[in-house]
């Protein structure tokens, strides 16, 4: 019989591995500058180790005196965060090198941010949720501004910092109110109190609303979305890729744990209206504004706002169908976004300048691989079969139809249609426009190309054979609700 501390430590082994690796990378950066070029690979090695630990070690459930719940859900999310981190690090090395910004801090901060996200994914106590949130956010503030000499990168960092601090304040204040109302920081206790009838207690309602609002900032859903375009556009592309999937995933899982516990739909009609309103507004506004963007990264920011709107539909619908649809959506979204941003990094001449759609004209025949991966990911984002984006939307809309939210499915598909219009703009710029007179000079990069290819192949493979993904998501949800 292993001692409790033994179980506790093993349960968070992946986080421990990443933290140790981050410290090691920092030391290498300081004392062994000769190894600097290998930092990206070393970081990937650590991620692989962490993923192995997550797969090999058991998921004991509640650990660390009930503050973390390392269950199947946490394991699933950990693996998805690690996959996103792996792809980010893979493309980061050459990307930083070509911008003369290769400094070890990048990898260290990325690893810490991932640890924060993983803590959030397994947090079942308000304090650990907040701890994870901050550990995730603070490194990201720095990463956003990693191009110190680029104004838009600095602007991105500052914006994300100010908005993030604002969001943290919301979350913290909401948590204080919830604690005041329920006398506990344990999510299970809070959920039980709320489900027992305290939902309409103003203190609880306001507290819950503020926590949700704070998470909405991280998700970048309307009305907490305004930071996304500037931050996406200004951040170094690998950071944008990481930012677009990992914090959103972590925040969604916290929301899912909250919503699953108390079944939002039954809690009160007000919550249904609020969440459905946010979902519909995010989809519609995100897609409408994306239509008129000229910068691909800004466009993807608005598309991300819309996509989180679809994911919120699944959160709202709840139940096994809805919850597993959230997970499927997260995985799908990760692959599509990672692939799209990696391909964009391949197709950009100057990383600190806007990435205009116009600059992609005619590249379909010159940078075939990059263009093809970008096209695959964009079609997938538009929800076209046989790509994983379709699987994800199918899962979400299926859940909505099955639980009486047919109108949300109709709004969702109408929005998919709207979104196709702007994804197509990029695709026709790639393939149907001639190369401009002064064609951009692009630097080939094997690791970035590999990242894009792996992500695009994932998009295709999971789209053609979604059974494994759907099964895994369903199994996770069954195991935690049992």
């Amino acid at each position, binding site marked *: 019989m292993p001692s409790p501390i033994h179980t506790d430590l093993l349960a968070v082994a992946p986080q421990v591995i990443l933290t140790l690796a981050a410290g090691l990378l920092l030391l290498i950066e300081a004392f062994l500058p000769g190894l600097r070029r290998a930092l990206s690979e070393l970081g990937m090695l650590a991620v692989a180790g962490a993923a192995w630990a997550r797969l090999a070690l058991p998921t004991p459930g509640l650990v660390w005196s009930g503050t973390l719940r390392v269950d199947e859900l946490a394991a699933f999310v950990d693996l998805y965060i690690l996959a996103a981190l792996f792809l980010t690090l893979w493309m980061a090395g050459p990307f930083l090198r070509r911008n003369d910004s290769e400094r070890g801090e990048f990898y260290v901060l990325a690893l810490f941010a991932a640890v924060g996200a993983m803590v959030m994914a397994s947090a079942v106590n308000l304090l650990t949720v907040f701890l994870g949130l901050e550990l995730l956010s603070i490194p990201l503030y720095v990463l956003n501004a990693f191009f110190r000499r680029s104004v838009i990168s600095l602007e991105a960092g500052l914006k994300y910092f100010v908005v993030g601090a604002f969001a943290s304040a919301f979350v913290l204040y909401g948590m204080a109110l919830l604690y005041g109302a329920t006398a506990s920081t344990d999510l299970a206790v809070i959920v039980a109190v709320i489900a027992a009838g305290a939902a309409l207690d103003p203190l609880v309602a306001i507290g819950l609303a503020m926590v949700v609002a704070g998470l909405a900032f991280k998700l970048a859903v309307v009305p907490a979305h305004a930071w996304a375009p500037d931050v996406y556009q200004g951040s170094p592309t690998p950071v944008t890729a990481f930012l677009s999937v990992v914090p959103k995933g972590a925040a969604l899982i916290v929301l899912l744990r909250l919503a699953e516990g108390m079944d939002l739909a039954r809690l009160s009609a007000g919550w249904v209206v609020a969440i459905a309103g946010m979902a519909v507004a995010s989809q519609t506004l995100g897609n409408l504004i994306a239509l008129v963007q000229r910068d691909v990264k800004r466009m993807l920011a608005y598309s991300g706002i819309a996509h989180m709107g679809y994911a919120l539909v699944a959160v709202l619908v709840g139940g096994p169908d809805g919850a597993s649809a959230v997970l499927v959506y997260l995985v799908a979204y990760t692959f599509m976004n990672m692939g799209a941003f990696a391909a964009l990094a391949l197709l950009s001449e100057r990383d600190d300048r806007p990435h205009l759609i116009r600059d992609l004209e005619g590249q379909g*025949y010159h940078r075939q691989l990059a263009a093809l991966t970008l096209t695959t990911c964009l*079609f997938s984002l538009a929800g*076209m*079969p*046989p790509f994983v984006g*379709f699987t994800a939307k*199918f899962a979400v*809309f*299926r859940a909505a*139809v*099955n639980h009486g939210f*047919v109108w949300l*499915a*109709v709004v969702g*598909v*109408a929005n*998919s*249609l709207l979104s*196709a*219009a702007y994804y*197509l703009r990029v695709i*026709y710029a790639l*393939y*149907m*426009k001639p190369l401009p007179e002064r064609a951009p000079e692009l630097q080939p990069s094997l690791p970035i190309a590999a990242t894009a290819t792996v992500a695009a192949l994932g998009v295709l493979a999971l789209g053609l*054979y*979604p*059974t494994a993904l*759907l*099964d895994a998501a*369903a199994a996770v949800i069954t195991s935690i609700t049992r």
Partner: protein
Amino acid sequence: MVDDHLLSIVLIAPAAFAVVLLPIPRRWRKVHRVLTIIASSLMFAFSLRLWTAFDADEPGFQLAERLPWIPQLGISYHIAVDGISILLVLLTTLLLPVVVLAAWRLNIEHIKSLHISLLLLTTGMIGTFVAVDLFLFYVVWEITLIPMYFIIGVWGGPRRIYAAVKFFIFTMVGSVLMLVAVLYLAWFHHLQTGAWSYDYTELLTTAPLLPVTGGLLAPGLLVFAAFGLAFAIKVPVFPFHTWLPDAHVEAPTTGSVILAGVLLKMGAYGFLRFNRGLLPAAWEACVPLLTALAVVGIIYGALVAMVQADVKKLVAYSSVSHMGFVMLGLAAGGQAATQGAILQMVNHGLSTGGLFLLVGMLYQRRHTRMIADFGGLAHEMPVFTGVFLIVTLSSIGLPGLNGFVGEFLILAGSWSRAPVAVALAGLGIILGAVYMLWTVQRVFWGPLANEANRLLPDLTVRELFVMLPLLVLIVWIGVHPGTFLSPTEAAVRLLLGR
């Protein structure tokens, strides 16, 4: 082994061959052409095995293959053919080598990408006709959008991007709601039986139970409308046709032929298979509307075609008119008219596909499609004129050629239910004859009007080979329609009898 997976091979072979083409350098244009023409001809030859293996007396699905795909949701890779789809599958596999050969000498950029797009498109189109699982159907239905978008947008005319985006968005408008309808049908099936299934054969037991009474918002009618919109846009039924002229005019010949030949049939096929098959009560309720739209399409398409100055646009609008006949046969008809409509789908693929090929050949020689630029071509290009005339006569329904059989069956079969519509459609036939023959007259007869047309080369041997299969079938169907009507009989009887 081969016979067990006949249908899968026919379905997957084009896509698989597209993957084979991928690593071959794009500079080797000749290699790409030779390989693709050989492969697509072999695929057609192989698909004839389907025809021989097909049992015309068996009304239901046959040559079926069923593998679990997403078993937890009741989704399977279930494909099969019946009398309704077999002809359309063969039409698809026939047109593939034809368009590849037609594009042979053209100085087309990115020929490798064109072939890959065509092959992927072919798999999507065949899939649409053979899918029995509605999830699979939706996937292949949507897949056809992507290659067609590229075919129009990359190899098309001056306004190609506009046309390509319009095509994509229009088609998607219909299909996204179809997704909700499919999900709803599956949910309803689960409600009734407790099992998840997207299988057509199983949904047949529950979908007709959807209530259609209680106003316009009855679930049965809404599901019908969602399917119907997707198919109506594809056919296209008036007033959803506005994407078609743009797409046709801007698309390269290759695209136009496939678009007219097969893609439009996907809509009519969908109406018959899903709207009629799954939702007979809603169908009955909507017959007047569908009939009216069909007739409007026939007359409107013909009138607009008449005033076109561009031959290609004229043929495009004539498609609207001809597909109106198909819709009329489906909407108003019983056994004979429905069989006629299926045959007319094939006929339209042959004659309109043929016209687009011929217009493309003319354009390649003169780089114009304006009727006013021609006149008196018969002296310079007698063989071309002859072929064009045969295809035109087929298109306007001359007895002895294929168009007559289809139109006759449709009109005769619809008479008892919709005499007014048939009378008006008869007017459409006359108008069709007027604009097509008038076009022939202005382009081919008379003295040579334009010196630029002197010494235009006649049909080459290759071009003759392109047209030959179409001509043979045009005559064959006209003289002995039984070959092509008998397979559809049992299947249509089963579908209508439900």
